[in-house]
């Protein structure tokens, strides 16, 4: 009989996970059982980007049926502390807003009820008075003198500035033949998971501890942030995560503020509390990758050799700095020179806070932003020097044969052969044919371009990388570096192998890979290995690096599992050596047996050997512990703290990705079509090629979204504009072409399995590769993502054809985008101006013409408060309105200012109405400008414009009727939003 054991690592075996997923038995966070008596939470969020909270009245909400409690920031502040951050800056954040709100979507009130429906009903009865403040929205404007301050106590919106220099950048730039510069702006986006956040927390008063079930994905350094906020030790914060995830992509570390919120709520009400995030909450309030502005320069020689880089990076973290921020800026720090052999580097990093959703950990984690600058610049170098882009890349790559290679800022590039990878991609991807295709398309007058991008993909973060944000003296006091991972291999009395580990999987197939690794070590089949990756901090090994991020699995947890399996194997070999009378180092494992290498017939079943460690521990070698439960732990020595020169090996492994693509732009619509996409990956040894390709496909799909569709849009007033998947456009199977994947395997020298990360490369390479192709197609210097057809149309269509003679173009006022609605119009009323004026100032008359008005009271002279049900078409809401008349010029003109608040959001606006006598009646003309925020701005963007036109018309129809009839000639040019009805009605639409 042949004892040769088949090796499973390196094979594309089927995913162990899929049976449960495909048959619907996989349990996601929302499916996990909750304790009886659990209350369900709903969160009321800020409709304002920046406002003081003047008063909150929850009394009516508390009295509603099924409602157990309604909590505010003050309640939470009493029993919790602000979240820890890496900077010593007074950026205080609790789980609910305290004192003021700083972004649209910030949690302000939480209602706890017997079910989610009742909890949401309660929210509609909460009354909050805000005093709005000017917001800081644009990151560059936020750095200017006099900009509104997000955190007054900091004294500036710039919360950290660090300068770095490596080599001699000044000399490099002084000696350069030419300096090529570019300024890029990378948008906000997020890799949105299908499953939102879930936090289910039970506070146990007897032990003063919290039991958390959540789809938290780590890093578990954040566990410390949670326990500190809840004022308990780590052991009193039990964190349980499920085996299955509806997608993580980094963002699920940002469930942590909600774990704190539900923990505090559970403690206050004395019952378990559960919260499930909905889509609007996720899009507006979960987290986004930071938007970044980079000014980048390269010192170049005339032959295209790059001798130096200069970066000025302004990273926008939104309203708060939440752990593990500012990771996106520092995680990439060691590898700021990308794939290039450039020794001279100067960097300025500035962190700015603005009135937008706080940033978080999103797949790619700083790489998309950084590589967008570098790889766009390299394309510019080629254009400016009239060289071939591909050749400029090739000329500057880190050469073959120099690995391990220390990059200027400290990354230790572990292995690779970048020029060979380029050549392989060029050949297998048929670059020459693509160039020909471009030439032919251009000869036909079509818009066709080719883009390239070469990047180094870092994986497994050094836990010390954030230290580089601190000056040398400070970080010397507490040097940080390393990254610990853990796995356990347990063999039970029947010889069944069970594996647990700290990878907190988010769908990648970790169970499958761990079963391959352990099976190979023990001479079993993957199907013999039972992997359970539910994680429980009360029972499982964990450390600060635990979790699912930075593509860490293959070089961390997988290695720990390999080490645990090797320990189990060694132990089994020692036991078997007694039975078989063969030295342990002469034993082999295969096909479920342990056998003598030189005499395979001298064999024993593995399950018997393992069983003996349980059944007859007395027979074990004297120094051996009974049972077989082996823990593998691993921290790579290369992950050192930053050195005195600010160099940091920010990640453990560095893969290489080289992409090229051809795109065609539709001349009529501006739509960008990806005609061909080739992506070359050297991710070291592939543990399971199919899973690796799955990672490439996933990263590529999101990257196509970033390139063409996805952006979190904010209005000038900080309102959030895409709160649904109808407005935040995630590419579907139709929009994602099939990339041609080319592999090369250069094993890593710093990890025992030789494998590198593969989950994030295309997030970094693809957006800029597509942008480069579009720049090539259009012959333009720069573009900003996403490349929507609307944006590309503006680049190719030139001046718009004017309206025909005699026709008027719509006024500029209506060309206002997003959440701002502006317009002007006029109407005729048969009554003379004096009567119209009197009606305008008469609350009873006003009340009678306002559709849906329940009550109108005069608060003060020319100051009214009303409650109205308003709607347009099918949409209806009940609102409170405040309206003030000012700048009165009776009976000729008045200015109206108003605010409208309700469950759907709010609007504020002002306008001027003028009255002029005409044909015995009055010609009313009005203009207005309204800003809309809250739910409606986020989800109703499509409905805003136009809806109010009907409302304005309605108002004037009634006005005219009440005042004795009259032709209504509403020539409204643009109205929007149904609450404009109210505003319009109360005078703003004048």
């Amino acid at each position, binding site marked *: 009989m042949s004892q040769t054991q088949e090796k499973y690592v390196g094979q594309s075996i089927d995913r162990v996970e899929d049976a449960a997923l495909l048959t619907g038995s996989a349990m996601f966070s929302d499916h996990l059982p909750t304790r009886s008596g659990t209350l369900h939470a709903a969160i009321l969020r800020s409709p304002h980007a920046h406002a003081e909270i003047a008063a909150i009245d929850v009394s009516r909400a508390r009295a509603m049926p099924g409602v157990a409690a309604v909590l505010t920031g003050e309640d939470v502040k009493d029993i919790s502390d602000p979240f820890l951050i890496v900077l010593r800056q007074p950026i205080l954040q609790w789980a609910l807003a305290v004192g003021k709100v700083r972004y649209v979507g910030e949690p302000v009130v939480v209602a706890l009820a017997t079910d989610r429906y009742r909890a949401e009903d309660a929210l509609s009865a909460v009354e909050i008075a805000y005093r709005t403040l000017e917001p800081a929205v644009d990151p560059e404007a936020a750095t200017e003198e006099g900009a509104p301050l997000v955190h007054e106590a900091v004294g500036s919106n710039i919360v950290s500035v660090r300068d770095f220099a490596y080599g001699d950048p000044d000399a490099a730039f002084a000696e350069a033949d030419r300096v090529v510069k570019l300024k890029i702006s990378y948008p906000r986006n997020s890799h949105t998971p299908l499953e939102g956040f879930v936090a289910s927390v039970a506070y146990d008063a007897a032990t003063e501890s919290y039991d958390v079930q959540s789809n938290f994905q780590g890093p578990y350094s954040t566990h410390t942030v949670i326990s500190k906020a809840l004022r308990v030790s780590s052991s009193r914060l039990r964190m349980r995560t499920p085996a299955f995830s509806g997608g993580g992509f980094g963002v699920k570390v940002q469930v942590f503020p909600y774990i704190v919120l539900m923990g505090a709520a559970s403690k206050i009400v004395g019952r378990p509390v559960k919260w499930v995030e909905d889509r609007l909450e996720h899009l507006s309030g979960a987290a986004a990758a930071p938007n970044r502005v980079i000014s980048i320069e390269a010192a170049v020689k005339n032959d295209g050799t790059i001798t130096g880089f200069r970066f000025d990076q302004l990273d926008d973290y939104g309203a708060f700095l939440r752990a593990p921020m500012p990771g996106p800026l520092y995680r990439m720090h060691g590898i700021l020179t990308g794939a290039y052999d450039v020794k001279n580097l100067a960097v300025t990093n500035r962190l700015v806070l603005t009135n937008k959703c706080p940033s978080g950990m999103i797949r790619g984690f700083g790489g998309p932003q950084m590589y967008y600058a570098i790889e766009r610049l390299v394309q510019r170098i080629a254009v400016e020097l009239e060289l071939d882009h591909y050749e400029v890349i090739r000329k500057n790559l880190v050469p073959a044969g120099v690995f391990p290679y220390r990059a200027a800022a400290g990354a230790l590039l572990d292995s690779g052969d970048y020029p060979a990878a380029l050549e392989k991609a060029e050949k297998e991807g048929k670059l020459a044919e693509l160039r020909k295709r471009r030439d032919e398309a251009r000869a036909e007058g079509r818009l066709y371009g080719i883009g390239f991008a070469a990047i180094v993909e870092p994986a497994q973060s050094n836990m010390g990388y954030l230290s580089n944000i601190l000056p040398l003296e400070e970080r010397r006091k507490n040097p940080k570096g390393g990254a610990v991972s853990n796995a356990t291999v347990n063999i039970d009395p029947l010889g069944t192998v069970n594996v647990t580990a700290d990878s907190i999987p988010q769908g990648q197939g970790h169970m499958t890979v761990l079963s391959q690794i352990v099976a190979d070590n023990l001479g079993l089949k993957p199907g013999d290995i039972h992997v359970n990756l539910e994680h429980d901090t009360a029972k499982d090994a964990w450390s600060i690096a635990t979790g699912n991020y930075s593509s860490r699995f293959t070089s961390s947890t997988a290695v720990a599992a390999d080490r645990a399996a090797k320990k189990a194997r060694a132990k089994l070999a020692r036991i078997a050596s007694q039975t078989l009378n063969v030295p342990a180092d002469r034993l082999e494992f295969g096909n479920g047996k342990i056998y003598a290498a030189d005499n395979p017939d001298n064999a024993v079943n593995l399950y018997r050997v393992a069983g003996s460690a349980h059944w007859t521990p007395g027979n074990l070698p004297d120094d051996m512990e009974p049972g077989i439960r082996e823990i593998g732990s691993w921290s790579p020595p290369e992950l050192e703290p930053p050195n005195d020169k600010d160099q940091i090996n920010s990640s453990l492994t560095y893969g290489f990705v080289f992409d090229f693509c051809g795109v065609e732009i539709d001349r009529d619509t501006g739509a960008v079509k990806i005609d061909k996409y080739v992506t070359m990956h050297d991710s070291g040894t592939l543990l399971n090629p199919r899973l690796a390709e799955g990672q490439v496909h996933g990263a590529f799909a999101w990257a196509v979204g970033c390139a063409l569709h996805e952006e979190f849009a904010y209005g000038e007033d900080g309102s959030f504009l*895409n709160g649904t998947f109808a407005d935040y456009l995630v590419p579907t199977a139709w929009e994602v072409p099939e990339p041609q994947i080319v592999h090369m395997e250069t094993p890593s020298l710093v990890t025992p399995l030789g494998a590198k990360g593969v989950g994030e490369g295309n997030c970094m390479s693809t957006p800029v590769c597509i942008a480069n192709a579009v720049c090539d197609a259009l012959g333009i210097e720069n573009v900003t993502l996403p490349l929507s057809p609307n944006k590309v149309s503006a680049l190719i269509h030139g001046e718009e054809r004017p309206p025909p003679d005699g026709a008027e173009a719509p006024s500029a006022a209506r060309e206002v985008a997003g959440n701002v609605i502006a317009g002007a119009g006029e109407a005729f009323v048969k009554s003379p101006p004096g009567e119209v004026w009197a009606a305008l100032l008469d609350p009873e008359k006003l009340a009678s013409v306002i559709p849906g008005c329940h009550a109108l009271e005069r608060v003060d002279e020319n100051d009214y408060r009303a409650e109205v049900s308003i709607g347009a078409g099918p949409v209806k809401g009940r609102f409170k309105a405040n309206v003030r008349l000012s700048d009165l010029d009776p009976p000729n003109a008045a200015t109206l200012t108003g605010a409208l608040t309700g469950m759907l959001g709010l609007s504020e606006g002002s306008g001027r109405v003028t009255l002029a006598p005409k044909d015995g009646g009055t010609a009313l003309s009005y203009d207005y400008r309204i800003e809309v925020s809250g739910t409606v701005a986020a989800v109703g963007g499509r409905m805003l414009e136009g809806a109010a036109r009907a409302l304005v018309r309605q108002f004037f129809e009634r006005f005219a009727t009440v005042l004795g009839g009259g032709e209504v000639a509403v020539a409204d040019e643009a109205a929007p939003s149904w609450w404009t009805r109210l505003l319009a009605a109360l005078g703003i639409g004048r």
Partner: protein
Amino acid sequence: MKPSPFDYIRAASAEEALDGLAAHGEDARILAGGLSLVPMLNFRLVEPAMVIDISGIGALDYIRLDNGAVEIGAATRQSALERWDGIADRLPLVHAAFPHIGHYQTRSRGTVCGSVAHSDPSSELPLCLAVLGGEAVLRSAAGERRVAASDFQTGMLTTAKRDDEMVAAVRFPVAEPGSGYAFAEMAQRRGDFAIVALAASASGERVRLGVGGVADHPTVRQWDGLAGGALDDALNAFAWELGGYDDVHATARYRRELVRRLGRKVIEEARSCRS
């Protein structure tokens, strides 16, 4: 994202549904496929006291030829019309529009009449109804009336339907022999709401062009014998008349650009399809 409390009637007959509407008026909403209504309920953008579900009324689930029109009942799913034997011959314009209407999954849920009743300015079915000169059949407990598509949709999500009425059926005129039809749409992703949707019919020298997504409801123009520069001029004038609006996806200017550029294409395609 949970709706406010509401009462619910699962109507067994059209009469029961209409009685419900008569009793509750503006506080009631008809639920058929729910593709528009249910998200609005969940966002609490609409908070009706009563939801009347007509999806189980067999008598309203039909497609029939009647007096030169294809009449489709209020409970008929879009997918039923999409798969109807006669669609390619009788309603070639609707047939051409179908691939742009949401997704396979949404079409198997959404109803033809629901789309017309909801009157989203970007929707394909109301646009086709307008270009073909079809009608909405409005029924209340008091009786029935027919309203031409051009009079039915009065603005963004607003129609001539009274609160006590429901759209009981829509009537698409069958294709005229010798006419050509074409449909084009620009959306950022397949199945998205159109930024601009265009539908054209051509018969002899006469063309009709309908545009959705630019004004607050589908708008139709008819021209005789226009070609070349004169057609471009007419399209430009039409684009400016429609005006357009800015939103997070597209500017008014882009929408007008598409009317000019795709308008010509869709008209040429309709003309080329004339038999």
